[in-house]
Structure formats: C-alpha cells, structure tokens
C-alpha cells in the first residue's frame, strides 16, 4: 500500500462513506435544527436583556449581570450535564435535544447580551438626547435610533460568537442527541475507522462556511456612510 492509499484507508474509505452518509445526513439535519433554534432564541433573548438593561433599573440589572457572568464563565458541557442529569431528579423530564437547545441558547444569550450592550453604550449620548428632545419614548429611541447604529457595530463579534456557540451542538453527543458528532462517533466505533469523523468534519465545514458568508453579508447590509 502506498502512503496515499494508507491515508485513504484510515480517513476516507469509500465503502464507509457509502455506508454511513445517511447517518451523517440525519446528523446534519439535527445539528441544523438545534443551531437555528439556538441562534433565534439566543440572539433574541440576548437582545431583550440588553434592551431591558438600558432602562437602568437596579432591580432588573442585578440578575441580568449575574446571569451573563455565570453563563459566560461556565463551560457549556458542565451546564449541559447538570441540566440533563439534574432535572429528572426534580421530576422534570426533557429530551436531550431540548436540554442542548436550552443551555446553548442561554450561553449565546449571555454573550450576545454583552455584545449588544456594548454596542448600545457605544452610541453617542447626543443621539439619545436628540431623539428624546423630539418626544420619542425610550423604546422608540431604542428601536429607531440606537439599535440600528448599535447592531451594525455588533455584527462582527456577534457572528463570531454565534458560530462558536453553535459549534457546541457537538456536545449533544454526550447526552445522546443524534447530531453530526454523535452520528460520527457511533459510526467510528462501529467501523473502527476515522472515516465517519472526517465526514462529520466536512459536514461542519459545509454548514458553517455559509454562516460566515451570511455574517459578512449582514455586515455590508448594515453599512452606511458615516459622519
């Protein structure tokens, strides 16, 4: 066997590709489902928390800051295991899929809140004053004047953070969620070959390259000529 053949045998064995691609494909579907759900709820919750924080009520802000710091500090795997193995003891039974979605949403929300918040405070105070002096409410000022400027600044860090958090869907493998990584590792132990893992790797690249492209498209969309 030549070196190339040995490499192909270990990582890209054609018959294993043929055998396991349906499994990987179903993994892709599950990963996409969780990722989309996490992005929607995580970003929405993060944005909502940042907007609530802008009202500067001490009562609301203390819990927000505690939540954000906690979920930014905690490794997602720890949170996933605690929720997955802890909740049944409280008589609450939720699926691994739901646990993964819930925890990753909270993690993304925590990071997104920080990013949205720093975007909001980076908008000059004069923008608030101009809008409020024409009679706009706090909410109207936020939605029409502040967020359009803040979000534009937030898009690059948000894209990066969103990708980083959604990649953690691979952690679903430890709680039996049938996402890409789980399919890949099961197939690997069945076949005793790394080919399914390579297939998983390719699947991740195929999923996340368009997300990166989408991020830069949004960045361009939000661009406007600045003073």
């Amino acid at each position: 066997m030549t070196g190339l053949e040995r490499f192909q045998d270990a990582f890209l064995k054609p018959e294993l590709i043929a055998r396991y691609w349906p499994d990987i494909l179903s993994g892709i579907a599950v990963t996409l489902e969780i990722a989309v759900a996490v992005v929607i709820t995580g970003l929405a919750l993060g944005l909502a928390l940042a907007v609530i924080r802008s009202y500067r009520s001490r009562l609301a802000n203390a819990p927000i800051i505690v939540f954000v710091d906690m979920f930014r500090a905690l490794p997602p795997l720890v949170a996933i295991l605690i929720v997955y193995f802890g909740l049944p003891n409280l008589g609450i039974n939720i699926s691994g899929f739901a646990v993964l979605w819930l925890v990753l949403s909270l993690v993304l929300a925590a990071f997104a809140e920080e990013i949205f918040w720093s975007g909001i405070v980076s908008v000059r105070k004069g923008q608030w004053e101009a809008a409020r002096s024409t009679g706009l409410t706090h909410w109207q000022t936020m939605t029409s004047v502040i967020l359009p400027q803040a979000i534009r600044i937030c898009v690059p860090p948000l894209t990066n953070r969103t990708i980083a958090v959604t990649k953690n869907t691979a952690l679903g493998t430890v709680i039996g969620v049938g996402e890409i990584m789980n399919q890949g590792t099961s197939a690997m132990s069945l076949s005793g070959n790394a080919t399914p893992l390579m297939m998983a790797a390719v699947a991740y690249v195929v999923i996340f390259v368009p997300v990166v492209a989408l991020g830069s498209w949004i960045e361009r969309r939000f661009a406007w000529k600045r003073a």
Partner: protein
Amino acid sequence: MSALLDVRGLRKSFGTTEILRGIDFSVAARELVFIIGPSGSGKSTMLRCCNRLEEPTAGQVVVDGVDLMAPGTDINAMRRQIGMVFQAFNLYPHMTALGNVTLALRKVLGKSREEAEAIGLAALDRVGLKEKAPSYPSELSGGQQQRVAIARALALEPKIMLFDEPTSALDPELVGAVLGVMRDLKAAGMTMVVVSHEMRFARDAADRIVFMADGEILEQGTPAEIFGDPQHPRTRDFVGELSR
C-alpha cells in the same frame, strides 16, 4: 404678556456639587433671550432642565402653562413642543436629512409617511435645504447639518426653541447661514432661548440678555444695557473680556 417659559427656583446638583443655585427667569412669547456667562456657569444645564433632559433637583419649569415637573405631565408630549438644538447637531447618521426630520412626526405624532414627508420637506425648505432631503448627514457640511437639526425641531411646530451653542462647532464661514435661519425664525415669531458666544448676533437680534455665573443669574437686561452699561462687576469683567 404671560410667560411662555417660566422657571422658578430651579436647582440642580450633580452629586454633592450644586450647579444651579436657584434660577428664576421667564421668557415671553416671541421673545429671543440670550444666555451668556463663563464656561461651567451652568448655562447648558439650565437649558437642559427646561425640557427635563436633565432632571432638576428642585424648582418649577412651566411651559405654556404646563408644569413639566408635575406627576401627571406627559413629558414626551411636552418635549415635542420644546425644540432643542445641540452644539454637536446630533443628527441620526443612519437616516437621510428627510428621515431625520420625519422620524418624530411619524413615531410621536403618528403621521403617515406621505404626510410626514410633506411637512418634513417644508421644514427643510425653511432652512434652505429642501434639495438636501435625500442626503445623509455625512454628506452635509456642519452648517447644513445644524440647519437640518433645526428643521428636525421645527417640523414638530414647537412653541419654543432652545439652542445650546448652535454655532460653536462650526467653521467660521458656516456660522452665517445658521444664524440667518435663526434670524428668520425670530422674524416669524418663534420664541427662542439661545446659549451662544455670538455676541454680534446677540447685540442685534436678542430682546434680552441674561448673564449667568456660578449657577446663578447675576444680571439681565436689553443688549444695550448689558453690553453698554453692565451693573454687576462679574458682568463687567465678562463683557470687557469679550470686547477685547
């Protein structure tokens, strides 16, 4: 003549430092009142208390008979009747000139897009910038930006307009057009309170000059009185400094 703006016993502290130490003053309809005084004397703070952009620590601010500090007062409804123009223009950079002028018309007054745009174009026309309606702030000179900012306030048909150093951020050659717009407003009967260092404008456009120092009004009078025959030693120093 009843006062359009009436400020009574206005006090404002930041932390433990008292910045405004009991201000009483009123502005009649159609009057143009100029506020002068050394830097840090509290001119901006006083002006910003007049629409509660700054929350007074004590005192009363009454605009057209409505007490702004009263618990039942809808401050947002009052603010649209009190136009404010800032030193830094504060145009919304993500909106065109017309977008800047129509935002409050649509959001606060609930006008339709067509209606708001008609009013907005008329307001831009009043400041001589109708043709700049589709331009973004970054495409306008400082003087043009400030005139758009004036149009933004004007579009809401305010009863009174507050100007905080409207020309201080402008290159000298751009000041004239902004002052020209303010003269037109005065001629059209707008009530105005202006904090500014444009003394020549003060001399020939103001009905009254108010001199502030250390959070208090030390003296007020006609331009002739304040510039020609100031009574208070601090006013004399300040006016003397200016004319040198």
